């Protein structure tokens, strides 16, 4: 059974903010060990100053002095499946500044949190080249799919 975290984050502003802090703390824990500092690179507030509360993304960061970034999209839990996927997106921050983002889309659970940390570590800390990273994403996705299929079979026994 999937244990979803911050289930009602989209309907409760307090929970939404706690959810952001949770991600910030996870990323800080991962990157501070490597002495990496980071900041947001995307606009997260509406023109009136209030937060976009759609989880899209729930958290984004770019370590200083790098052209790599991470955007995490969190969706409301809808099923008992492990909902998780990721891809690399090339885009621009301005006319003369290009970046490559690891984009993660998930329903937050213990399982998807660990998969996220694993991918973020490979992308930001280990700095896998893009082709290797894409292979690694495929590999983890397949493992995740197989794991879920096995779990379903076990539940039917």
């Amino acid at each position, binding site marked *: 059974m999937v244990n979803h975290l911050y289930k009602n984050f989209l309907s409760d502003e307090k929970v939404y903010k706690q959810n952001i802090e949770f991600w910030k703390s996870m990323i800080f824990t991962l990157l501070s060990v490597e002495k990496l500092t980071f900041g947001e690179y995307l606009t997260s507030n509406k023109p009136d100053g209030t937060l976009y509360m759609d989880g899209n993304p729930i958290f984004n960061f770019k370590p200083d002095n790098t052209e790599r970034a991470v955007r995490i999209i969190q969706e409301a839990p809808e099923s008992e499946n492990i909902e998780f996927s990721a891809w690399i997106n090339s885009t621009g921050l301005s*006319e003369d500044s290009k970046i490559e983002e690891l984009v993660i889309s998930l329903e937050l659970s213990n399982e998807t949190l660990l998969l996220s940390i694993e991918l973020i570590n490979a992308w930001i800390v280990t700095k896998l080249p893009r082709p290797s990273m894409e292979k690694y994403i495929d590999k983890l996705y397949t493992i995740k799919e197989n794991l879920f299929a096995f779990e379903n079979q076990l539940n039917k026994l």
Partner: protein
Amino acid sequence: MYMKHRGRIQAQGENLEASEAWAQNEPISKNDGLLLLQNLKNKIPLKESQIRENAFNKAIEFIKQGPHEVIIGPIFRSYKVKGTKQERVDIEIQSGIAFTNS
């Protein structure tokens, strides 16, 4: 020539990469944003459009919620088709203001 208001809407996936972009001196309106989205929908295969129905609807909702203004950095939205690896619709507002009422 530098255009103040720029962005793009994309339909992406394992075997798909289609996009519609804007770059202009005035903010793009909601109507023009919706038109770009419709153009994008029309130019991809029907099957790709059908699996993205929900993602397109979420993108429409986001456009209708405008205006959106780039403050500290761009505004990105990705609406992924659940249960797929990376079939999705993306909106990227790279600079300026997008999806105004007029």
